[in-house]
């Protein structure tokens, strides 16, 4: 057993962290939160230049052909920096969907562009409040065209292509489609969210031309597979974010005085920070296992991914809210940065199925495993 990243992967981490420290401090996050731009285009361009969008895309499609361990390293650092870019939608979801289910033509058409950052992809599933299921979907395809609307779609306002999950009369009740968003029959509007540093949209499809991705009636299975893979990468982002919240809290606690001494000397604060550390460390442990399962296509992936996801959701929520608490009144101000991890923690936790969904998946996967 070797439960560590390689020297090369650690070098990549150092480079990534250095790069993000230089190009994505919290001022960058704040500018997107406060301004009209949907994401930081300059940062995105540089991320693309570094090849991060090409990480796991096979070389035959102009990718770097690296493993999910490298992508995990990048994910943790992007999460740590709270990067305001459409990376998760484009890389963990849209690119993955095409790698997993695309025909040779579809891969040739889209993967090189996704690798080179010429286009941004997104995944459109939700149709309003509550957990979507194959049965709950109302959007359908008819004669190669989609009608209906999807909301919210992370990065839907800036994406060029969308992987759309729509209802199907056959198979598992859903099919996946690839839709180019630059067509007259597609309308998009930005929807305000709890984390304006990551944009979301409502997308209307009025007989938008769409191309089947994978087989008819296998859309829900594809989505489950995608989520299992993306869960590991989201969890890494969440662990990176938890670490940021913990470090903010630690720095502040050391310098803030109350009753004549640093608040860091109070056990209420020490235990709070220790608990942040414990939760984040457990989540990181689960993320290591998830990264291994993902990179080696192991049969354990469903359990590993769900465990990483559940513990990372919990760690990030705890660290983000208690970071505000550690800052007292200052933590509640717009001027301070504590709001960023608090917003992002919730956004990342509802993005690909919330805590309850993954707790359920975890135990179901374990049941299945034990029965086998």
């Amino acid at each position, binding site marked *: 057993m070797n439960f560590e990243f390689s020297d090369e992967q650690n070098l990549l981490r150092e480079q990534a962290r250095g790069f993000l420290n230089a190009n994505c401090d919290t001022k960058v996050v704040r500018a997107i939160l406060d301004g009209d731009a949907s994401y930081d285009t300059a940062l995105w361009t540089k991320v693309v230049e570094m090849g991060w969008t090409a990480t796991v895309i096979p070389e035959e499609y102009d990718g770097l052909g690296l493993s999910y361990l490298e992508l995990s390293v990048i994910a943790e650092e992007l999460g740590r920096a709270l990067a305001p870019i459409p990376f998760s939608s484009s890389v963990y979801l849209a690119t993955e969907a095409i790698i997993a289910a695309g025909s040779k033509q579809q891969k040739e058409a889209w993967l090189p562009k996704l690798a080179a950052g010429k286009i941004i992809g997104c995944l459109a599933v939700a149709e309003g*409040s509550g957990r979507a299921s194959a049965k709950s979907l109302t959007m359908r395809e008819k004669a190669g065209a989609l009608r209906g609307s999807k909301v919210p779609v992370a990065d839907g306002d800036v994406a060029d292509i969308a992987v759309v999950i729509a209802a199907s009369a056959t198979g598992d009740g859903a099919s996946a489609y690839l839709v180019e968003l630059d067509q007259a029959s597609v309308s998009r509007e930005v929807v305000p969210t709890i984390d304006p540093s990551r944009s979301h949209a409502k997308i209307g499809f009025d007989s938008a031309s769409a191309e089947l991705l994978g087989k008819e009636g296998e859309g829900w299975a594809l989505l489950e597979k995608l989520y299992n893979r993306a869960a590991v990468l989201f969890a890494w982002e969440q662990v990176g974010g938890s670490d940021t919240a913990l470090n903010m809290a630690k720095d502040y606690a050391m310098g803030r005085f109350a009753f004549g001494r640093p608040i860091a000397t109070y056990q209420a604060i020490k235990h709070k920070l220790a608990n942040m550390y414990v939760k984040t460390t457990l989540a990181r442990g689960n993320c290591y296992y998830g990264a291994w399962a993902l990179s080696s296509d192991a049969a354990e992936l469903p359990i590993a991914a769900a465990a990483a996801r559940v513990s990372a959701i919990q760690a990030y929520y705890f660290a983000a809210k208690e970071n505000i608490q550690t800052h007292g009144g200052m933590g509640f101000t717009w001027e301070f940065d504590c709001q960023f991890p608090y917003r992002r923690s919730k956004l990342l936790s509802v993005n690909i199925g919330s805590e309850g969904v993954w707790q359920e998946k975890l135990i179901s996967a374990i049941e299945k495993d034990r029965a086998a």
Partner: protein
Amino acid sequence: MDFNDTPEEATFRQEVRSWLEANVPASSELEGLDYIGTAKLWQKRKYDAGWACIRWPKEHGGRNATAIENVIFGQEESKFDTPDNIFGIGHGMCGPTMMAWATDEQNKEYMPSLASGEKIWCQLFSEPAGGSDLAALRTRAEKDGDEWVINGQKIWTSGAHYSDYGVLVLRTDPTAPKHQGLTYFFIDMKSPGIEIKPIKQISGGANFNEVYFTDVRVSDAQRLGAVGQGWQVALTTLMNERASIGGGGGGVNFDSVFKLAQKVMIDDEPAIRDKTVRSKLADWYVQESGLKFTGYRSMTALSKGEIPGPENSIGKLVGAPKQQDMASFALDLLDASGAIWDKELSEEAGMFQATYMGSPGLRIAGGTDEIMANIIAERVLGLPQDIRVDKGIPFNEVPTSNS
């Protein structure tokens, strides 16, 4: 013990209900008014009919009602959709402090307009260096004839921007140990030299402020308690604060999450059918009802003449994190769309999202979770205090930073 109304209470309840039914303003009446306007309109209407601050003495604008009658009025009022209340600090904290420490003439002069909502009051306690450690505040007051001259800065003053008066604690002797060098005043917020700067909150609004004092003059007649007795007067305010910002109230609560769970779906069934959802709801229900009935018990004690004690800290300690966790859970139930915060697109016009972003403030305002827990440990359970490095030494020699 009897949880039912006595015949007198039932009569009173009926009287309250009838009055509310006939007098709660219709939305058409409130059109064109901002939240201050609507709050003032409703408060004035209550006042004119004798339903404002009903526990207060008649000559101060109240109705000499009992604590239980006050609870009944609150219960009945909360069943109606009334304008947001912006008088909580004035009615819950400033008023009771004034009535305990100001002269009769002062109370006759200032209390009726506070009860009627014509004048709004705020609480100028916290400072950059004095939050949890309130007694570490530094804003100076120096005696000059019959007046005091104030210089310094307050922070986090809720509603300062629309307030007419404020209560404040000031340092009158920096060489005395910290609790002994404080003196308490009330002040006209329009006094020359007061400058108010709003602070934007993470929830988007800007309801609290920085308040700067530059050579602001206040009459010695507006001092409450003796010079150097400010901490004792402040405790009156803080006790009332604990009693007034309890856990319950509006926003996200058991009822709103229960309703949401009946509406949104999990695996094609209403979320309320899901066992994990039910178990969480059960946990929150028992916390909420536990708080409610504990509150009734302290009301009963209050009605027998006892003063609100440190045990009232439990309301905020349980209630504030509960709101945060419930809001967080509600967003999870909404799944992907939990992220959307929009009047039109979100369930309940975005109330769950607003509470998610606002509840961190509740855990800090009026004493943080940690301070509430310390109060319960030390003042209710009688556990020994932390070793105090600032005890007994002159205030201006207490360490305030690492350097």
